[in-house]
């Protein structure tokens, strides 16, 4: 009993985070996800046919900056804001708010002012370089863009990893001659994005609906539960197929649909937690103090009921990534932009089996889903009070 009292003076979430990170699985999972996030943010600098820096007659310029899309800029802005906020001492809620604000501002600014050239001729820099127009060139670590089909070489097509000594393709090329690794790096954005956004939408809906159901119970609960059952009966994949057929292929539609079909799970968790919490004395005390409903629901009850939701969310991210991969594999994914599922599809469709085209994107999907499952598992163990802190 005494050790519980003297236990380190940390807030609950810090303790949970600590307990989660003690587990090796969670560490590995987090490392993989963090790596993926880094790769996704810096994709245009990691894999691009456009040089990072060139020196032309003594004048140094960075052509890659001209080709940044608004999305690239927003991601970079968000990343650096996050980095700065991490070290600033302030509340978590405040940090989130600042991050959201900066993201929104950057988004608007980028939409207005940043217009990359529509037509990208990847060859021009290689041609200029071989013609000796530059003093020196700093290329990206993987000097191939995902949609650079190497037309200037003429002899492109399927190529094994590291087959050609002049043109190093670490993971080989696909049948059009584009670099597989480069495509995978750019596709990591879609994988992460769809996971986070879809799960975010689902969580938001689930928490609000589930919270209201749990707090008010009675009639609200009954109607809510019927709604949950209706949405649980909707098959996500077929709905996605239908939408793709009607409205064309769009990443955003996919995110929204995965989001609004998977909230019932979260709503159930939150409802159960709120039903339990409502009877707790501290909630009764908050009611007795005359606190407004918003504060009771979101300040007093929600943080105590978020544990199971977060666990479900980490598994939800994994399943959203899988859903997107499935859809792309079926050939209903995005046009133009590469995605891991679509790359798998390419691997099957070519006449001969080319292992590198299946193994690398497949491995990436596996690793990412596995990482999220590891994190979810560790989070669940850390939150479960019965598994005990004794060990």
């Amino acid at each position: 009993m005494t050790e519980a009292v003297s236990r380190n003076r940390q807030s609950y979430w810090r303790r949970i985070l600590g307990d989660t990170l003690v587990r090796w699985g969670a560490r590995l999972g987090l490392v993989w996800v963090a790596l993926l996030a880094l790769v996704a943010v810096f994709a245009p600098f990691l894999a691009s046919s456009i040089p990072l820096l060139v020196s032309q007659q003594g004048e140094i310029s960075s052509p890659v900056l001209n080709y940044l899309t608004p999305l690239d800029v927003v991601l970079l802005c968000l990343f650096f804001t996050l980095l700065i906020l991490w070290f600033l001492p302030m509340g978590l809620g405040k940090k989130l708010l600042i991050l959201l604000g900066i993201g929104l501002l950057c988004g608007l600014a980028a939409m207005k002012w940043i217009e990359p050239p529509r037509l990208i001729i990847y060859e021009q820099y290689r041609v200029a370089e071989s013609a000796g127009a530059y003093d020196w060139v700093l290329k990206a670590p993987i000097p191939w863009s995902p949609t650079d089909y190497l037309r200037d070489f003429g002899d492109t097509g399927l190529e094994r990893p590291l087959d050609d000594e002049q043109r190093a393709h670490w993971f080989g090329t696909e049948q059009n001659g584009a670099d597989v690794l480069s495509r995978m790096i750019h596709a990591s954005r879609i994988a992460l994005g769809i996971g986070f956004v879809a799960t975010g939408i689902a969580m938001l809906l689930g928490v609000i609906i589930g919270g209201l159901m749990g707090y008010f119970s009675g009639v609200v609960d009954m109607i809510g539960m019927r709604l949950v059952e209706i949405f649980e009966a909707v098959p996500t994949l077929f709905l996605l197929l239908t939408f793709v057929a009607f409205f064309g292929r769009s990443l955003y539609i996919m995110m929204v649909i995965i989001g609004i079909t998977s909230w019932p799970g979260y709503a159930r968790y939150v409802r159960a937690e709120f039903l339990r919490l409502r009877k707790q004395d501290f909630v009764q005390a908050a009611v007795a103090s005359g606190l407004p409903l918003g504060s009771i629901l979101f300040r007093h009850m929600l943080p105590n009921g978020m544990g199971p939701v977060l666990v479900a969310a980490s598994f939800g991210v994994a399943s959203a990534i899988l859903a997107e991969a499935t859809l792309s594999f079926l050939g209903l994914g995005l046009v133009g932009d590469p995605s891991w599922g679509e790359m798998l599809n390419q691997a099957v469709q070519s006449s001969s089996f080319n292992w590198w085209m299946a193994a690398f994107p497949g491995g990436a999907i596996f690793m990412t889903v596995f990482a999220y499952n590891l994190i979810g598992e560790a989070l669940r163990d850390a939150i479960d009070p019965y598994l005990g802190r004794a060990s």
Partner: protein
Amino acid sequence: MLLTVKDLRTYLRTGQRLVKAVDGISFKLDRGKTFCLVGESGSGKSITALSIIDLLPSSISEHPSGEIVLQSTQGGLQNLMALDEAAMEDIRGARISMIFQEPMTSLNPVFTIGEQILESLHLHYPDLSDEEAWQRALQVLRDVQLSDPETRIHAYPHQLSGGQRQRVMIAMAMACEPDLLIADEPTTALDVTVQKEILRLMKDLQERTGMGILFITHDFGVVSQIADQVGVMKQGRLVEVGDVQQIIRRPEHPYTQSLIAALPENLSKPSVVSYQEHSATVANDNEPLIRLEQLQIHFPIRKGLLRRQVDSVRAVDGIDLEIPQGQILAVVGESGSGKTTLGRGILRLVEPTGGRVLFNETDITGLSPSKLRHYRRNMQVIFQDPLSSLNPRMSIESIMTEPMKVHGIGNSREERIERASDLLRQVQLAEDSLWRYPHEFSGGQRQRICIARALCLEPSFIVCDEITSALDVSVQAEILQMLLELRDQRNLTLLFITHNIGVVEYISDETAVMYQGRIIEHGRTSQIINEPNSPYTQELISAVPRIPRLD
């Protein structure tokens, strides 16, 4: 000598740390006698019992020293510490049995009680035929005076009341006629009237079978009723061992003295003068602060597909009550009598289904939530369980200042923090407690925080719902004394819900006795305690185990 415990040590491992839960205790227990281990929570009483019956997982516990010698009717002298697991299994349940505090969780809900008794019989007497075992199970149920044992033997645990379940637990423990019965707080979860019956039953069984009882409790009243020998435990050590009369009347060790002095019946009121003055002002004040008129709280029982209401639970069934300003009214009653629902109904934490609650002559039952909010700051509540009544995710500072902010007390955050730390000082907590989280405090400290939180809105009326039942006696004494002081300072009116008659006697001016949703007796506390009118109150008061007053 039935049981001899010599220099028993039990160390528990939690993570890297070693806790000396039992730190070298020695005592002896004779056949047919009862040895009581008394102590506050965390003193190592239960761990001692679990060590004797060897129920502690060896992965977290170790015994650096100790000898537990049992003189059983079969097998002669045995040192239990030296036995292997197989031999211990023969002793456990057969020679030594144990009953626990919570009868609901100690019985398996998916088996009938008959099946559970038969299982242990078949285990320890393999050559017993089914029919003989059945007869024997019936006989032990008869022995524990369970009414109608022929039908009850087929009952599932949830079909029995708490007292009946504890009887079944005792029957299971007695089935193999053990030499030693270990009872770990067997009556703590029970009402006093049931407790009285269970204690008498244990005495009867002991006289008949001559078994020894190791009885663990924190309640000196129970000790005085059942014990022959008493051992007082503190932090894993036995500080005093002796005859029950000697321990209760002439405790020698300062710790025992302080424990006995902390009992509510031995506490001295802060000052008798102010108390009488207080009663005088109460008498002059005609306006009651709280008035209940025919208050009803019924919970509907719904059945079937259409959820039609078939019946209702009448938790509070027509109560008229007046509480004058500045008075402490105690509401006593057994579990299920509706006293907690009454307290919550007055605050409208549970919506009353009929009748009126008047606060300062304003009917608050019909107020809309927004209008009610204004009255909320005048009426506060403190709950029983200090663990669950503070939000574990919020610091004490935000727990205390948020209600102030909502009700517009204090103009700035600094002012509110200043007020909060003032209040913490008043409940005798350090000021830096403001920046800590609830899990860093002990139960008593948390209850102080709850009191400070209730006071931060400057209420005139507070419902105290069993606020000391989860606390040790010494902490209970401090909290009660503090409440009386605060009442005098702030002219508070309290509705004090409790089942502890000693606490009622100490703190309250008037007492109302509740039974099945109604108040059956209401009057001055001294009159209710000393000359109760209704038969139910008489039974309730007489069932309270009391110890003779200290001189």
